[in-house]
């Protein structure tokens, strides 16, 4: 895990505009890291969902709160860290959107989609410094849908 990585970092306000900015940057970083267009789209979507969650659930749409976005490009993988200023959440308590009783719910699919699109998804509460989610996509991993 000591392999060198290139780091790209950005601090954004908690707005929908920032979600767009993050997506655009993701596409650029992904293409630089060598992911093909389909993978760029999937990783972009995972970042889109994570950014919306950070802005909406983490920072409660308070534009003065920040979201920090950090890309780390390793030879074998891309890691994306998205940190908000909220109090975090427990991944184990999130309802499964595929359960029959949840199928017609209007929300609760974001994290499920993120998990379908990247290889690893982690949530970490940083004492006094907010919550960080980490998305990892391996190169040449070609994760299949469904």
């Amino acid at each position, binding site marked *: 895990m000591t392999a060198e990585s290139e780091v790209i970092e950005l601090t954004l306000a908690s707005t929908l505009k920032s979600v767009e900015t993050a997506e655009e940057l993701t596409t650029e970083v992904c293409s630089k890291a060598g992911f093909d267009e389909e993978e760029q789209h999937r990783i972009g979507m995972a970042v889109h969902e994570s950014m919306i969650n950070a802005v909406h659930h983490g920072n409660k749409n308070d534009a003065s709160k920040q979201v920090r976005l950090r890309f780390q490009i390793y030879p074998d993988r891309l890691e994306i860290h998205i940190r908000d200023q909220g109090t975090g959440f427990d991944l184990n308590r999130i309802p499964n959107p595929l359960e029959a009783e949840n199928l017609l719910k209007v929300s609760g699919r*974001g994290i499920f*989609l993120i998990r379908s699109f990247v290889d690893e998804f982690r949530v970490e509460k940083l004492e006094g410094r907010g919550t960080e989610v980490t998305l990892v996509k391996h190169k040449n991993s070609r994760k299949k849908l469904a």
Partner: protein
Amino acid sequence: MSMKAKTRRVDSVTVVDISGRITLGEDLTELRQLIRNLLAQGQKHILLNLADVTYIDSSGIGELVSGFTAASNQGGQLKLLNLTKKVHDLLQITKLLTVFEVYEDEATAIASFQKATRV
């Protein structure tokens, strides 16, 4: 890039041609309002043509589900037409293909509403 929605009438069916991105934001609120207005006006056969939808996120998917439920609750039907591969894949992994009636051909989709009325 943003969403556009235009409605047209074919027989008893209101077809909504949607293009662009169905993602969180004002456009989504407009789509919800459009569907609610159709239902309020008694236009209860709604066919969403998603042929030109380039991107849909979890909020957009939620809005489709919300429209589906609103239509069903009012004795109407909301169906989908012309899914792009991206949208199809998303509805598949979220198991919503088991919820929505999806058509690849407009005439067949329109006819499916007529049948429903006669029963």
